[in-house]
C-alpha cells in the first residue's frame, strides 16, 4: 500500500485565487487548518484539488460553464492558471496548467504519474459540505452500486445479471419442455384409460391391443412396442373400404348442406319485371339517358380541364356557371323518375347477388367424387344445365335500358330446373345412405381396426415422448449447473460485499459514537439487503433497530453520518493517498458536536494529512486548540477581485519572514512584517493570559491593534499585581516603538519616515523579551503552565503566578 502525502501545494490564477498562494507541508506541519470567512476564496482551494485529481470541477461542468471559468478573470492572455503539487514521492511532482486557449496539461508525463492519477481518481480525497449527505440520501440500489465501484466490483454486477438471465432463460425453456411432455403424457393416459401415466401402464395397454390383433408378445420397451406395431401393420390387409366410406361421408355432408340452405329464385324475377316495365315507357328511358349524359357533362366542367365557357356536349359558347346551373335544373326536373330508377338499381344488384349465390351452391356438386358414372350423373347433368342458364341470366342482369326491350325469364326455365335439382339431391342422398350401410364393418373387424389404431397411436406418442425425454435431460443438467453457479456467485458477492460493509460499518459506528457519545446510540451498521439488492444504514438506538436513518435522525445527525461514512470509506479504500480535504463540513452541525468532530479528526486521523477549511471562526478556534502537533493554522485575511486570496502565515513562518526581512536592511519592507508579527504575538499572549477586552462583534475583534493590545495587557497585569514581581519596563520600551503603536489600520503601511532598521529590530527583540517575562527563571516553565479553572495560573514550581 502506498502512503503518498503532499509536500507542498501552490495555486496561481485559479478560480478566486489571483496571486500565488502556497501551503508548505515539508516541515513539522503535515496538516493544515484554514479559516476564511464566506466569499474569501476558501472553496477555490478545494476546487484546486478536484481539478488536479480529476481534470475537471463537477460544479463547473454544468450548463453555461467552460474551462475559462477555472481561470481567474483578471489573468492576462499570456498568463497560465496553475495548480502545483509536490508529493512525498518526488517523481510524482506535477503542475496542472490551463492557458487562455483552454489548453489544459499536466507537466509530468511519466507513466508512473499517469497510473497514480488514474488510481487517485477512484479514491475519496475531497469532501464538501454539499456532498455530505449525498450517499446517505441515495437509494439502496445506488448505495450498493457506489460501494461496488469503490471496491472494484462493478463487473460483478454485470456477471450476476448475465448469469441470472441465462438461468431464467434455461428455466423457462425447461418449463416449456416439461409442459409439452406432461401434455402428451396426459393424452397417452387418456388413450390407455389409466389413472396415471406410467411406462408400465403403457406397455400393459400395448400388450392388450396387440392380443386383439392376434399378436402375443411381451412389451417392456419402446423398441418392442414399435416391433409389435410393425407386425400389426403387416397383419392388416389394405382394402379401399375406409376410402370409400370417407368419400361417401364427404358427399353426404355436401349434399345435406346444400339441401339445408337450398337457393331460391326471387330477386331475378322481380328485376326482370321492373326492367320490362321501364323499357315499355320511352319517356322514362330517354329521361334516364339524358340524366346520365348531363352527369358526364357536369363531371367534365367541374374537373376544370375543359375549354373555358364552352359546352362539352355541343361545343357552343356558354358561361361555365350558366351551363352548370342548366345541368342542375335538368337533373332535378323529374325527381320521381330518378327515385324509381334508384330503387330499380338496388333490385338489379340484389338479382346479381342471388344468381351468384345459386351458381356457387349448385357448383358444389362438382366436388363429389363419383366412383361410377351412374351414382350422381343425373344430378351432375342438371347442375350443368342450371349453370348455363345462370350465365344467360347474369348477362341479362347487366342490360341497359332500351325502349321496348324485354327480358323473359321463362325462356330459361330456371325455377323448374332448381325444383328438379332439389329432388335429385334427395335421391342421391338415399343412394349414399344405402352404400354406407353396405360398407359397415363387422363387430370383429371394428375391434381389430380400433386395436390397430390404438397401437399405432400409442407407438407414435411413445416415440415422441422418448425424444422429448432425451432433450430434457441435458437441459435439466445445464439448468442445474447454471443454477449452482448463479447461487454460488451470489453467495460470494454477498459475502464479499458483507465483509466490506462490516469493515466500513465498524469505523462508521466508531466515528459516529465518538461524535454522539452518551446519546443512546449503540451502533451503526451498513447492511447488504439481498432481496432488494441494495445497501442501507441501520441505526441501533437504545436497543432498537431503525432504518433508513432519515426516519429518525435530524439534519445535523445525518450530516454527521455523512462525515463518518466519508472518513470510514477513506480509511477502508484509499490506497494511494494519505491525505484528504474537508471543505466547510461543519455547516449545519449543531454547536455541541463540533468539538467532538474536531477531536475525532485529530485523534483518529493523526496518520493522515488533513486540510480542513472552515468559515466558522468559533470552530476554527476550538479546533486549533486541539490540533497542535503537526498542524499549521492559517487564516484567509482578506480577498479581493484584483488580488485574490491573502493568507496569514503560521507563527513559525511569520518568525522566519521577520528574520529574512530584517536581513534585507530595508526598513520599508521589514516594518510592516515586524508590526504584523508583534501584533499576532500580543494577541496570542493576551489569549494565553486571559486578558479581558471590551466586547466587539465578529471580525472587529480580530482587528485590535498593537496599541490597544499592549495597553489592555498592561492593565490586566496591573490589576493582578503582577508588576510587584516583574519589572514593567519592557512595556515602556515597546510602547516607545512608535511605528508599532501609531498607525491607522491593519492594511496601511506604517509611516516609516525617520525610522531606521535598528528601530524595527529593537521592537522585534522586545516582543520576545516580553514573552520571556512570563517564564519562571527557576523551572523554565511559563506562567500558563498550570491553569486553575481558567483563572489562576502558575508555572510548574509555583514561584511565578498570576491572579
Amino acid at each position, binding site marked *: 500500500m502506498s502512503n503518498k502525502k503532499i509536500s507542498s501545494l501552490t495555486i496561481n490564477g485559479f478560480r478566486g485565487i489571483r496571486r500565488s498562494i502556497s501551503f508548505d507541508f515539508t516541515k513539522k506541519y503535515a496538516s493544515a487548518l484554514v479559516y476564511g470567512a464566506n466569499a474569501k476564496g476558501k472553496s477555490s482551494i478545494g476546487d484546486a484539488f478536484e481539478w488536479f485529481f480529476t481534470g475537471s470541477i463537477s460544479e463547473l461542468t454544468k450548463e453555461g460553464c467552460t474551462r475559462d471559468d477555472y481561470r481567474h478573470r483578471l489573468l492576462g492572455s499570456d498568463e497560465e492558471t496553475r495548480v502545483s503539487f509536490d508529493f512525498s514521492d518526488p517523481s510524482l511532482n506535477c503542475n496542472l496548467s490551463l492557458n487562455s486557449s483552454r489548453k489544459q496539461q499536466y507537466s509530468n508525463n511519466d507513466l508512473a504519474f499517469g497510473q497514480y492519477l488514474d488510481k487517485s481518481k477512484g479514491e475519496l480525497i475531497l469532501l464538501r459540505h454539499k456532498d455530505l449527505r449525498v450517499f446517505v440520501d441515495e437509494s439502496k440500489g445506488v448505495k450498493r452500486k457506489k460501494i461496488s465501484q469503490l471496491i472494484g466490483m462493478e463487473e460483478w454486477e454485470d456477471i450476476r445479471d448475465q448469469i441470472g438471465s441465462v438461468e431464467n432463460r434455461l428455466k423457462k425453456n425447461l418449463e416449456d419442455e416439461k409442459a409439452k411432455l406432461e401434455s402428451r403424457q396426459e393424452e397417452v393416459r387418456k388413450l390407455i384409460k389409466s389413472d396415471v401415466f406410467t411406462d408400465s401402464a403403457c406397455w400393459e395397454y400395448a400388450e392388450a391391443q396387440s392380443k386383439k390383433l392376434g399378436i402375443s408378445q411381451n412389451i417392456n420397451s419402446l423398441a418392442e412396442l414399435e416391433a409389435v406395431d410393425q407386425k400389426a401393420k403387416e397383419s392388416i390387409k389394405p382394402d379401399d373400404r375406409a376410402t370409400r366410406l370417407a368419400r361417401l361421408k364427404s358427399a353426404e355432408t355436401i349434399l345435406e348442406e346444400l339441401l339445408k340452405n337450398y337457393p331460391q329464385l326471387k330477386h331475378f324475377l322481380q328485376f326482370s319485371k321492373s326492367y320490362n316495365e321501364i323499357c315499355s315507357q320511352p319517356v322514362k328511358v330517354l329521361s334516364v339517358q339524358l340524366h346520365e349524359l348531363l352527369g358526364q357533362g357536369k363531371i367534365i366542367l367541374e374537373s376544370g380541364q375543359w375549354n373555358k365557357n364552352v359546352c362539352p356536349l355541343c361545343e357552343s359558347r356558354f358561361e361555365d356557371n350558366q351551363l352548370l346551373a342548366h345541368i342542375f335544373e335538368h337533373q332535378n326536373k323529374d325527381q320521381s323518375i330518378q327515385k324509381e330508377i334508384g330503387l330499380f338499381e338496388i333490385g338489379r344488384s340484389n338479382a346479381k347477388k342471388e344468381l351468384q349465390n345459386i351458381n356457387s351452391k349448385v357448383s358444389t356438386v362438382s366436388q363429389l367424387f363419383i366412383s361410377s358414372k351412374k351414382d350422381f350423373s343425373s344430378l351432375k347433368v342438371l347442375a350443368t344445365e342450371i349453370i348455363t342458364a345462370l350465365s344467360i341470366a347474369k348477362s341479362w342482369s347487366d342490360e341497359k335500358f332500351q325502349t321496348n326491350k324485354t327480358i323473359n325469364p321463362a325462356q330459361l326455365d330456371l325455377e323448374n330446373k332448381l325444383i328438379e335439382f332439389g329432388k335429385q339431391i334427395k335421391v342421391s342422398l338415399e343412394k349414399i345412405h344405402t352404400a354406407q350401410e353396405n360398407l359397415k364393418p363387422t363387430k370383429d373387424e371394428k375391434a381389430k381396426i380400433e386395436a390397430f389404431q390404438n397401437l399405432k397411436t400409442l407407438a407414435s406418442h411413445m416415440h415422441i415422448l422418448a425424444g422429448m425425454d432425451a432433450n430434457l435431460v441435458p437441459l435439466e443438467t445445464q439448468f442445474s449447473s447454471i443454477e449452482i453457479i448463479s447461487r454460488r456467485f451470489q453467495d460470494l458477492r454477498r459475502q464479499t460485499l458483507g465483509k466490506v460493509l462490516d469493515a*466500513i460499518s465498524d469505523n462508521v459506528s466508531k466515528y459516529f459514537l465518538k461524535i454522539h457519545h452518551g446519546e443512546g446510540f449503540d451502533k451503526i451498521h451498513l447492511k447488504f439487503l439481498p432481496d432488494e439488492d441494495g445497501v442501507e444504514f441501520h441505526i441501533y438506538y437504545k436497543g432498537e433497530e431503525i432504518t433508513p436513518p432519515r426516519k429518525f435522525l435530524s439534519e445535523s445527525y445525518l450530516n454527521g453520518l455523512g462525515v463518518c461514512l466519508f472518513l470510514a470509506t477513506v480509511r477502508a479504500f484509499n490506497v494511494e493517498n494519505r491525505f484528504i480535504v474537508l471543505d466547510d463540513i461543519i455547516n449545519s452541525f449543531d454547536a455541541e458536536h463540533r468539538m467532538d468532530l474536531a477531536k475525532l479528526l485529530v485523534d483518529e486521523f493523526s496518520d493522515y494529512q488533513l486540510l480542513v477549511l472552515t468559515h466558522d471562526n468559533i470552530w476554527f478556534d476550538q479546533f486549533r486548540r486541539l490540533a497542535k502537533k503537526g498542524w499549521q493554522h492559517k487564516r484567509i485575511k482578506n480577498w479581493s477581485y484584483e488580488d485574490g486570496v491573502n493568507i496569514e502565515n503560521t507563527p513559525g513562518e511569520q518568525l522566519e519572514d521577520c528574520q529574512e526581512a530584517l536581513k534585507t536592511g530595508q526598513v520599508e519592507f521589514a516594518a510592516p512584517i515586524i508590526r504584523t508579527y508583534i501584533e499576532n504575538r500580543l494577541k496570542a499572549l493576551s489569549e494565553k493570559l486571559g486578558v479581558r477586552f471590551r466586547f466587539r462583534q465578529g471580525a472587529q475583534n480580530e482587528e485590535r491593534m498593537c496599541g490597544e493590545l499592549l495597553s489592555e495587557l498592561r492593565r490586566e497585569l496591573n490589576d493582578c499585581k503582577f508588576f510587584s514581581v516583574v519589572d514593567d519596563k519592557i512595556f515602556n520600551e515597546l510602547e516607545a516603538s512608535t511605528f508599532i503603536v501609531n498607525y491607522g489600520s491593519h492594511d496601511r503601511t506604517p509611516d516609516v519616515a525617520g525610522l531606521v532598521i535598528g528601530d524595527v529590530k529593537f521592537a522585534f527583540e522586545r516582543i520576545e523579551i516580553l514573552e520571556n517575562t512570563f517564564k519562571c527563571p527557576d523551572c523554565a516553565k511559563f506562567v500558563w503552565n498550570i491553569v486553575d479553572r481558567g483563572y489562576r495560573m502558575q508555572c510548574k514550581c509555583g514561584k511565578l503566578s498570576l491572579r
Partner: protein
Amino acid sequence: MPNPLEEKSANEILREFFENLEKLPNIDSSVATTIKKLWNEGNLNRDEVLTALELIRSNQ
C-alpha cells in the same frame, strides 16, 4: 485496515471463482468449462452463453 477484503482484491476473488468452477459439487463439467472459457475471453454475456450451451446439447 487498508483493504477491507484483506488478503485478496475483488478481481482476484472473481478470478479464483471462475478458475475453480469445475470443482463446485454437482456441476456439469462441460457447463463449467464453457462458462470459464467465455469469462476468460471477456464474452460472458447471455447470448454467448445460451448459444454455447445449445451447441453442447445438440452435440450430445
